[in-house]
């Protein structure tokens, strides 16, 4: 139905899209319902994503990365998979988010040590930033790292860590100096089996239930100094750059969910009626279809524009936030109405037998994580003001 071909600059990307589309439809789609029902992290899907090279997409090319169009490639993969299973798509996103501080902050030695073992050893990465009292306000984290000779000792609690219980590697944001400012935090790489690191309970969620979300506790976790990612005090800046990459990916997930719900409506109507006459005879359905399609296409425009800016090495902050905000709100609206449409046509969208109720629950998270949509609006407004001031100065 929808086609992102106009946003695929190369033949290679088109082939990439086709390959994922096939795998998603035939191998991931059949798993979506039951992993949601059982809150099950599916290792078969994980293995498939490794086989397809999707869990190293954003790595440097020699470690399995996609190459120069990697931000676009990530969005394509996420979108195609999220059409059928948002939880599986989330695994890709969090892998990219978690490995970002390692790829962009790790020393050459550290990258040479860890990236091959992550890639060949198929290790998942989790991103430990959020704490019970620190969500949107990243600078207020309480977890600390104290220097002891050539080592650091980490202490604190992290929560809502996606892949927290299944990861082999963690990128952890901690305070490295006193005070509550943006220059006081740093990222560290911590391996799963480091003494003092323990996994808390798995969270029970409204949606994206096939993803694993846990608390992670750090109690006198001793790590070598070379596991510092970036410079000391650079944590906040790395986190912000990571967002530029991850927000279009979350938006692509929202877009995929919305497209999945849209396809479900069309398929439902088609199974029962002659699509053409039916839709024109039902003005309410007609306007829901039209509004949904507008939102889907507009989301796509913002998402791929943001991703392309990132691939071109330009500042994509504003478009990344716009894409995330717009596509998340759109997905919520489309999935909410999809249930109504199916219900109004004599189906039972509210029942667990139908995919749309899951999509509705899955969509809600896209308005929340990687910065709530309220925070996105703040980021967008600040960026607009920054641009206005700098263009004033030029004149």
């Amino acid at each position, binding site marked *: 139905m929808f086609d992102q071909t106009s946003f695929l600059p190369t033949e290679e990307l088109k082939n990439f899209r086709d390959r994922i589309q096939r795998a998603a439809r035939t191998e991931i789609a059949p798993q979506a319902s039951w992993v949601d029902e059982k809150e099950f992290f599916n290792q078969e899907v994980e293995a498939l994503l490794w086989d397809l090279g999707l869990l190293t997409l954003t790595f440097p090319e020699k470690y399995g990365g996609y190459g120069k169009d990697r931000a676009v490639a990530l969005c394509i993969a996420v979108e195609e998979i999220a059409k059928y299973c948002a939880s599986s798509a989330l695994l890709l996103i969090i892998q990219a988010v978690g490995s970002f501080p390692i790829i962009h902050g790790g020393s050459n030695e550290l990258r040479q040590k860890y990236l091959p073992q992550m890639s060949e050893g198929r290790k998942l990465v989790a991103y430990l930033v959020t704490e019970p009292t620190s969500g949107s*306000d990243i600078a*207020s984290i309480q977890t600390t790292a104290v220097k002891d000779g050539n080592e650091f000792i980490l202490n604190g609690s992290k*929560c809502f860590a996606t892949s927290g219980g299944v990861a082999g590697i963690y990128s952890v944001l901690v305070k490295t100096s006193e005070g509550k400012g943006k220059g006081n935090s740093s990222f560290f790489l911590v391996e799963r089996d480091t003494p003092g690191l323990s996994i808390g309970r798995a969270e029970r969620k409204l949606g994206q239930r096939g993803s694993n979300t846990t608390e992670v506790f750090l109690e006198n976790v001793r790590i070598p100094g070379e596991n510092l990612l970036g410079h000391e005090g650079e944590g906040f800046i790395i986190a912000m750059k990571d967002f530029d990459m991850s927000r279009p990916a979350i938006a692509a997930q929202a877009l995929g969910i919305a497209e999945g719900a849209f396809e479900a409506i069309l398929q439902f109507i088609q199974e029962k009626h002659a699509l053409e006459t039916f839709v024109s005879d039902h003005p309410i359905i007609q306007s829901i279809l039209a509004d949904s399609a507008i939102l889907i296409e507009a989301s796509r425009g913002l998402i791929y524009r943001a991703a392309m800016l990132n691939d071109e090495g330009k500042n994509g902050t504003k478009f990344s936030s716009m894409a995330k905000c717009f596509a998340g709100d759109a997905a919520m609206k489309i999935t909410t109405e999809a*249930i109504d449409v199916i219900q109004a046509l004599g189906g*039972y969208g509210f*029942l667990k037998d139908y995919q749309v109720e899951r999509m509705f629950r899955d969509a809600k998270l896209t308005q929340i994580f990687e910065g709530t949509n*309220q925070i996105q609006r703040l980021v967008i407004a600040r960026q607009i003001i920054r641009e206005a001031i700098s263009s004033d100065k030029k004149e």
Partner: protein
Amino acid sequence: MFQLDEEQRLILQSVREIVEKEIKPRAATLDETGEFPWEAVRIFSKNDILNPLLPRKYGGVEVSIYTFCMIVEEIAKACASSALLLITQAEGTWSIVYGADESLKEKYLKRLAGDSKVLTGLGAIEPSAGSGIFSLPARAELRGNQYILQGEKCYAKNGSVADFLVLYAYTDRSKGSRGISAFVVEKGFPGLVFKRDENKMGMRGAIYSEILLENLGVPRENLIGQEGEGYLIMLKTLSASRLFTAAQAVGLAQGAMEEAISYARSRVQFGKTISHYAPIQFMIAEMATGIESARLLTYKTAFLFDRGEWKKAGTHAAMAKLIASDTAMKVTTDAVQIMGGYGYMKDYPVERMMRDAKLTQIHTGTNQIMKCIIGRDLTGIS
């Protein structure tokens, strides 16, 4: 306008206490297990609020529709499924109160009196009918002293637990909607077969069943009113249910807003509680404005019902249900948003409220259908 009289004040105070002590603590488990709220049946019946609309003549309390709406609202603040229990009881009762002759009323309504735990319910919808309920193909044929019912019902509220149900079927298909009749069917009548209870996204503590009518024999005297009167009985029942759904949605939204406000006042980010920030305040302002508007329309509609202005009440019920359920959906979605990651987790009640709210946009007719009804009523196009 909304000054409560002494009786209403006492009833609502007692409902509030029961909800706080008995209903709220059970809401999460009810949702988790998807079991029928037997405990709520016991508590409500003990406190005379399981069937508060039941006429005095048959041993009931007979509160006004307005009072009933406020009771539903209070319960829905903590647990929408438990509020749905009252609505379902009312639906079963209403069809009989407004359509049946005296002997049938005596027989069934009296069974609901006092601290009775007798359950009733309604089976109107059929697979592949949905909001177009009058395309129902279930049929009833008079054979001697019995009607024989054939067909299938889904979404029968209280279907598998009700002691008696009101079912609708065609006695004469050639007459269209004027050929529909209503029947009281008791649990245990041979041919009333329960297929399964539905696995739902929300309001999981309420039962919707698929039932089969396999040569179901119903005594002739269990026909409600005359043959062909089913359509009008159902319209009146549905109108009232829409109003009750509006009250339920208002309560649900109020409950979610209260959770969000209390969270916003305690959650500190960037050095202040998040209640200080404009985006949060705006969401709360929109929530409160939406809830108050919906509540006002709901109460106005209740007054129209109490004054017997059926036609106007019917249109208003559709409007009240539309605005109240859309408000509930928006408020609960935003309540999850304000609570962020915590709101998305099952440890907090707002994600359940969001799932529950979705059903208020659907049951008793989807909101798309509400718009059709309102538009047709106002333009005079039938």
